[in-house]
């Protein structure tokens, strides 16, 4: 028991390394605030483009989505991070992370938005167009609000996944929460910082998990 407390819940160590963890936490937060909106924007572009039902374009979009859904995000990240310098693009690790995550998350968000848009009946569009709204207005004011509501649980679920992905950035030395936890562990030779990192993620993401369980149950019960 003593060994457990000394190694996992060592307050002295925690006190010493908490500035590092705090720094990592802010980086993770910033990363989320960049990656999630970027991914959602990318996904919307994919889904709206798909909704025009141009055959060659749709083949292209499905190929894009399935291509990036087949890649582990970590592989994509490492390929972008180590690959870009070889074609003469020296980019900071943050940019490499953003590019890799945009490619990956946009395809997942795109699939979800596409399902949402397809769940809205044709009649809605036709009615909106016949009142004089343009195609774009119809999409923004009529289709998307209902589409988003229909796929809200999937959107939240994917956002949870995206936030979890940000921990992968530790592999390319981006100083986010997990990276900082490992640095702190290395400095103190005590795994307390790792446990602290896990607890921070838990505190951050558990509410989303709870919310999801409720939403999913509700939508499934409705079917």
């Amino acid at each position, binding site marked *: 028991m003593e*060994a*457990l407390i000394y*190694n*996992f819940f060592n307050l002295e160590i925690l006190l010493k390394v908490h500035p590092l963890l705090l720094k990592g936490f802010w980086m993770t937060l910033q990363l989320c605030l960049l990656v999630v909106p970027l991914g959602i924007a990318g996904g919307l572009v994919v889904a709206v483009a798909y909704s025009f039902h141009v055959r060659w374009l749709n083949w292209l979009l499905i190929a894009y989505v*399935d*291509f990036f*859904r*087949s*890649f*582990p*995000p*970590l*592989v*994509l990240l*490492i*390929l972008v991070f*180590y*690959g870009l310098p*070889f*074609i*003469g693009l020296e980019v900071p690790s943050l940019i490499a992370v953003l590019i890799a995550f945009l490619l990956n998350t946009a395809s997942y968000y795109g699939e979800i938005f596409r*399902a949402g848009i397809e*769940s809205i009946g044709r009649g809605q569009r036709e009615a909106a167009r016949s009142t004089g709204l343009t195609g774009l207005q119809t999409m923004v004011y009529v289709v998307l609000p209902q589409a988003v509501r*229909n796929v809200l649980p999937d959107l939240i679920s994917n956002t*949870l*996944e995206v936030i*979890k*992905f*940000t*921990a*992968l950035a*530790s*592999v390319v030395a981006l100083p986010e929460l*997990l990276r900082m936890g*490992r640095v702190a*562990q290395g400095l103190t030779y*005590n*795994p307390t910082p*790792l*446990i602290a*990192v*896990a607890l921070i*993620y*838990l505190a951050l*993401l*558990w509410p*989303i*998990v*709870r919310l999801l*369980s409720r939403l*999913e*149950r509700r939508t*499934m*019960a409705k*079917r």
Partner: protein
Amino acid sequence: MNRIAENFFDLAVMAKYLPSIIDGVWVTIHLAVLIVLSGLALGFVLAVVRAFQIRPVNWLIVLVVDVFRALPPIVIMIVFYFALPFVGISMSGFVVAWLSLTLVLASFAEEIFWTGILSVDRGQWEAARSTGLGFLQTLRDVVLPQAVRLTIPPLTNRTIVITKSTAIASVVAVQEILTQASAAQAFSANTTPLTMAAIAYLIIFFPLVVLSRWVESRFGWKR
């Protein structure tokens, strides 16, 4: 263009490192198959146990399932691999990767199976019980067959996402595709091995992603 060919598609490098990438492919497939089998089985068992509605047991299940849904897989693996040895629990990287992702998949699967069980109307339970079927018989012969069908599309998607996460095992020194490719990249000072890894993942997972699309249209519910 030449530069891209040289750094990403160098045939000499490809030929040299093909055997080690193929070794990695087998490790990845081995790990993935084990995770799918144990993860889905454990998730199913947990959902069935939950159906008995024993309060303290259910709280425990919900707690564990929530934790493993909230934590990023990379954080779980790092805690298992780098922190647990300090309290006397040492596991090889392969076991850590298998155990971590099994727990993650089991948690998501439990939630999906449970939602499926809940979606079967109460009347079905009551009708089955009133014909003289026992609780277990009702669960096995009436409820589960209906519940499982509903769970196939989300389970397929989730299983693919989690088996892709085996790439994270590279962080705990499992000799899977990404580890092999990173080592080869370091030796050859060339990104080609990473391209090969990407292609290997594409060959393994692209058919599965296409399959998941088919499953969705076959078993999914029209909204």
